[in-house]
């Protein structure tokens, strides 16, 4: 359970306006997240063709679900998962800052925020998303 209890920080930059560390394929232009350097799943270009591409932590909510049953000790249910289509292209799945889906509407603006977590005694920072109107 430990590998994703605290997602590695290289997934995002911990700035005030956090960005997601995406990748762009030099060969075909495919932009994706999460980052990896094995090879492009769209055109097959090798990993050295995959260059960093910062993705702004802003987008539109495409789907959401409140999880009522969760076996991992890393997080207590209920919590809510959202699919956010980033303005910079890729759709990402993220934990939302609000525990339930109350008031959420598909299509509404979402923004990335960094939250401090303390799961299984380990302090970590996670990138989550919140509704833009409630952000800061």
């Amino acid at each position, binding site marked *: *359970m430990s*590998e*994703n*209890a605290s*997602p*590695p920080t290289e*997934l995002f930059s911990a700035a005030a306006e956090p960005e997601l560390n995406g990748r762009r394929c030099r060969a075909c232009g*495919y932009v994706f*997240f*999460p980052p*990896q350097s*094995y090879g492009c*799943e*769209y055109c097959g270009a090798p990993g050295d063709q995959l260059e960093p591409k910062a993705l702004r932590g802003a987008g539109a909510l*495409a*789907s*959401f*679900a*409140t*999880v*009522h*049953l*969760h076996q*991992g000790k*890393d*997080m207590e249910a209920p*919590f809510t*998962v959202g*699919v956010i289509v980033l303005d910079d292209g890729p759709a*990402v*799945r*993220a*934990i939302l800052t609000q525990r339930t889906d109350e008031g959420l509407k*598909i299509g509404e603006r979402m923004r990335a925020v960094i939250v401090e977590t303390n799961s299984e005694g380990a302090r970590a920072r*996670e*990138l*989550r998303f919140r509704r833009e109107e409630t952000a800061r």
Partner: protein
Amino acid sequence: MKKTLRQMRPVYVAGIGLHRYQRMSDTPYVTLGLTAIREAIADAKIEWRNVESGYTGTAFIGMAASRPMLRHLGATGIAIAQVENASASGSTAVRQACLDVASGLTDVSLAVGVDKPGPIAGAPGKTNIHDLVGRRVVPFTHFALLANEYMNRYGATAEEVAMVAVKNNRNGANNPYAQRQKAVTLDEVLAGPPISGSLTRLQCCPVGEGAAAVIVVSDDAIDKLGIDRSRAIRVTASVSRSERVYRGAKNFDAELTRETVAQAYDEAQISPQELDVVELHDAFTIEELLYVEAMGLCGEGEGARMITSGAVDIGGKCAISASGGLLAMGHPIGPTGTGQVAEIARQLRGEAGVRQQPNARTGLAHMVGVGAVCVVHVLQKDS
């Protein structure tokens, strides 16, 4: 030159057998598997020594599962292998057995699916690629997200999605091999407990243990072994695909099914309108709506109406998951895809009893596996 299954030697399902899908028990996998295989051999009215190769579809019971099971049928020295393709393991075992017979390598091959829930971790978690959610998004949340998106896009209600569980449990109540054999009302489905998003417990398939076996044969075997030709069901397509990057597509799960099923229709030379029975991957209620549309059984966004209209009930235009599907029959992983082919063959023989779809002549079995793969078989009764 490339060939389709239909252009090779004809392949027929001649024997089917199952061990009931059930909650995890102390029953060894050997007992589960042998029960299904012995039933399939008896059904085909052949002998074990006639079987020339065997594929064991399994995901959880571990390395080298075949020989410790098959030797108790008499160790005849046949070619054996384990087949793992996530939820589509049993479907892939059927495909391998079909390819053996179609190619002429064997005249009689066995596909058996057998599994017991186990602690083996899947490889996709071992790629060292991390995302923002990790194991907080398990399959039921993946499909809860798809359900939320679907309902929003087409104005379908949570009740309409839940009706899939009502229909499939009604069918499963009449299937002695099903894990859930009890009809449920819509209120009971909606009552929960809630799992994720709009999905409640009864909208998620039970994962237990069980076994299913299918014996496939050539024309030569039918003649040589005196197999009843009227009960042999031809496999006219066997297609296996994996997910591509569907740029611009709304839903990758539906898209993978759409292109795999389209290839199967093409290879079998049928249209969706010809399907009388379908067993599809309804691990979660929303999947049935997505896949009936992807299969072309109705238009985009019409899946919910199709389910509630009765068109896919037994006795309707095309019976979907007459067995009870994964939702009621259960999803023991390894056996599931093999059991689907067994149900389709039973239906096309006209031997499904109270679950019988009238005049069924053409059927399709569809399984999806995480990772993501899709395996589709088309079966047809010779006219």
